[in-house]
């Protein structure tokens, strides 16, 4: 079985496509899921998609090692974000007894 070149040799575009898919899925999660924790997980997915792109560009593109370091910083910030976001989620849960985003519409009135 002979595969075409673009299929047989995964390059930059392949990784970018995976990243794009991950991004879209993450966005979908953020937009549709009503649980705050799920929203958080969607954000993590988006961040990882970005990370994948960065590292891929670092490998194939003209980014050298900077991409790696960007990815590292994103991971660090994601960790911080996750900690704070979960703390917020807990606080909201304590306050309202739910983490359903649909019900958390105090801003409305």
């Amino acid at each position, binding site marked *: 079985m002979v595969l075409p070149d673009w299929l047989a040799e995964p390059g930059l575009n392949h990784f970018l496509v995976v990243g794009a898919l991950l*991004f*879209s899925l993450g966005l979908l999660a953020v937009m549709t899921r009503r649980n705050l924790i799920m929203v958080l997980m969607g954000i993590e997915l988006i961040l990882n998609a970005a990370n994948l792109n960065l590292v891929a560009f670092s490998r194939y593109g003209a980014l050298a*090692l900077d991409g790696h370091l960007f990815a590292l910083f994103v991971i660090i910030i994601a960790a911080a974000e996750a900690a704070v976001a979960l*703390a917020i989620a807990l606080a909201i849960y304590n306050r309202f007894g739910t983490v359903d985003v649909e019900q958390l519409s105090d801003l409305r009135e």
Partner: protein
Amino acid sequence: MDLFAIVFYLFAILIVSTAAIMVFSKNIVYSAFALMFTLAGLAVFYALLFAGFVAVTQLLVYVGGILVLILFGVMLTTRGYFERVRIRTVYMLPSALFAGIIAVLLIAVFVTTDWTLAPLSEGDVTLAALGELLLTDFMLPFQVAGVLLLLAIIGAVLMAARKRGPLEKKGTVPDADKII
């Protein structure tokens, strides 16, 4: 089709499928575990891309840290049986439509763009080089990141532990509307 391609496709399928499971699963705990596989698969991708250090960090921080944190969050914010953890989705149709459009657009852009290519060799990526960059060109972000983490820790502790909400106080779950 060499090993690289095989590993790539294998893990690409793994990553995308587990991500899809995470997004579409009705059970939040399943979602969390699916996310774990996604993240681990991504670590393999990083390794494929000569980013060994990022891969290790990914495993340590994401899989070992954030994911555990998320699982804790799930457990602390859900009560009773997992049945009740099942959650509905909203705006499924427009969201799916938009997400699909974005995915198509992104892929179109990625594929059609003629990227400047300057591939790395495996030997270029050393821990020493990364460390040197961190302490030279990225000195400021490095320090700021440290401060940020410290602040995040303090902030998280404060926010999660500051005051006892009505749940702890009364031991019952009041109606959210009534509280508001």
